[in-house]
């Protein structure tokens, strides 16, 4: 018993905060990456979802709950993308600081001009997100707004470092301007693409291309053979410019359709991290835009 107690004391001592800055918990890698650009070394970022995970199908793990317990602020994508695990995390982490309505609760989609809000939707249509398309990390304009929102939230929680965060946001915005010119120089206007999942709608909006078909007939429901066959016939006639897919979500199916139709596949990174050279959000966007060239 005495041994147990001393072990407990030791672990408590180990737990005493060596790091004085804000503990930021981000659900998705890109959110963690943008937060790091704003907070730099004055925040500690824990990202819950691994880059290789499909963000739609994440299960809550005790380690996530523990991270939530220690968080000063929780930053998440919103629009129901985290509905499978975040409500549980919020309750089980027993941390009032990160509950809805508190300054430590940041729904990044609040700063986003959301597209594809559905008014009439039911689950027979598949895994439709009724609050709108949640994959806005492909949208430079929206990510800039999110970065600004994060800056305000961090500055609000940590007044002493507010000028530091604001200066970092200025640098972020400057870098954004420079990159945005480069990204906009990639001419995708009027191009027509087929996509595996409804991931690239924001990209289409900002870069002026069209999404003319989906390999998934209904989002989140694996496509039937009949649907794929119909899509192949359609693609043979309409000859779209490419099939857009990500490195692990529908790549196999897309490649087999590509082989049958002669339409090339363009593999885009799904988030910050899973592919080489996508270590932060800027590198990720660079990779996205260079994949088209």
């Amino acid at each position, binding site marked *: 018993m005495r041994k147990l107690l001393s072990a407990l004391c030791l672990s408590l001592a180990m737990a005493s905060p060596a790091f004085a800055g804000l503990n930021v918990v981000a659900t998705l890698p890109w959110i963690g990456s943008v937060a790091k650009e704003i907070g730099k070394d004055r925040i500690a970022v824990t990202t819950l979802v691994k880059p290789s995970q499909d963000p739609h199908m994440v299960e809550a793990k005790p380690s996530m709950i523990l991270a939530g317990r220690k968080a000063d602020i929780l930053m998440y994508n919103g629009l129901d993308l985290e509905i499978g695990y975040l409500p549980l995390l919020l309750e089980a982490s027993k941390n009032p600081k990160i509950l809805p309505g508190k300054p430590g609760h940041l729904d990044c989609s609040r700063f986003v001009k959301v597209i594809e809000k559905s008014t009439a939707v039911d689950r027979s249509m598949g*895994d439709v997100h009724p609050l709108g398309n949640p994959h806005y990390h492909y949208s430079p304009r929206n990510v800039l707004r999110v970065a600004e929102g994060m800056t305000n939230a961090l500055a609000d929680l940590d007044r002493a470092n507010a000028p530091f965060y604001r200066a970092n946001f200025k640098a972020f915005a400057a870098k954004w301007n420079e990159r945005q010119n480069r990204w906009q120089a990639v001419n995708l206007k009027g191009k027509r693409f087929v996509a595996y999942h409804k991931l690239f709608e924001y990209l289409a909006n900002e870069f002026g291309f069209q999404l003319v078909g989906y390999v998934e007939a209904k989002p989140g429901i694996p496509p039937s053979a009949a649907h794929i066959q119909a899509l192949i016939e359609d693609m043979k006639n309409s000859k779209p410019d490419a099939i857009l897919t990500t490195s692990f979500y529908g790549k196999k199916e897309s490649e087999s359709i590509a082989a049958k139709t002669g339409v090339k596949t363009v593999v885009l990174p799904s988030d910050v991290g899973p592919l080489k050279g996508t270590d932060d959000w800027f590198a990720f966007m660079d990779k996205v835009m260079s994949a088209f060239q």
Partner: protein
Amino acid sequence: MKLVLCFLCLALFCSFGSGALAQDSAERLNSLEDTLKNQSKTIEEQQKAIESLKNDVEKQKSQELQRSQEESQLLSKASGFFGGNALTNPNISVLLDTFAYGSNLNNAELENRGIPGFTTLGKDARNGFNMGAAEDGAELFIFAPVDPYFNVYVNLPFSDEGVVLEEIFAITTALPEGFQAKLGKFKSNFSRLDAQHPHAWDFYDIALPYRAFVGNEGVGGEKGVQFSWLPSLPFYTQFGAEVLQGENDQLFGAGARSGPHAFSLFVKNSFEPTENTTLYFGPSVLFGKTRNSNILTDAEVDGRSALYGMEAVWKWKPSSREGVTLQSEYLFLTQRGDATDLTTATVDSLRRHQDGFYLQGIYQLGRWRFGARYDMLELFADSFKRADVQQYLGQTPWRATGSIECNPSDFSRIRLQYNHDRSGRDGRSNNEAILQFILGIGAHAAHTF
């Protein structure tokens, strides 16, 4: 402009003052005048058009301004976390749980098939169509935050006989330092399968040790209060304690004492040995006063019980599409008290030291899940003494299970399960086949670990 042109014309007229040209020039002047008039008309028309366009643009500008103001208001509005409007509508979901059952035993044999030395209660399932494990064919879940301090959860299972208030409880959300209290009627977190709802189990039925010690549904909803604490440590450790009324009619009994007479303590730990694996384990104990007639066929047991548990889960999840879960629990019961014969009212002493365990594995590949389970009672302890005499209860109870599941979406599950059940101790086996459908509508419930 018009004036200048007129002067110009006048000058021209004067310079060509000679009579011979007079007629010619008059004609020319007339035609010039006409064209001038026409031109001035078109200019006027164009000016009008420009002005109306200006008006239109200004209108649009003001509209846009209004819209952007509205938008920024929308953006700054905090949305309810669970989606939708949680202020006026609590989150509601309904679960349908139905299965077809076939066994080599007839319904009367199933109803009387207890586990001698553990429970007299038979199986719930009947040959043919059934509504849900423990006959709860539909379950209504309602949950919502009450205010910044409490969340409320309600679980109402519906069966042919009516509605049961299985769970209604509040959870505190504002306590500091990782403390949380739960109060109302809720499922105990004493062990793993107890805390899960039947539809969340990996098989259609509960593991054999649970059936033997606490009944077909586990401890089930108990009135009481729970305190838990998640300290901020480098690893996940949660401590919990519960004070319960003790109405479970297998381990306790509503009439065992007038006040709360069941208590539990538990510790849950977790760490991640590698990036893709998670280990979860913890000991627990549930103890209290016992008084019921579901242990012996011929007598009521009145005494004290303590049920010790150890749970362990190992999960390997390299991707969203694939994964393996191994799960095992060990339960050990000590019970001592009096057994009062129901007909003669003679009183004997009763002392039990019995245990049981199960080990199960699930392999998931895309929408498919394949499961196997082995349960056994009296692994190390099989002491059952009535009037200080060890009773012979029959063969060691065990069961083997295999299952295949298809999950077309997050909200539907189709399961085919086969049990080879030797828990009747009479040498007869119960070979069961189950085809189960679980369908959920309404709010998305989060998955627990």
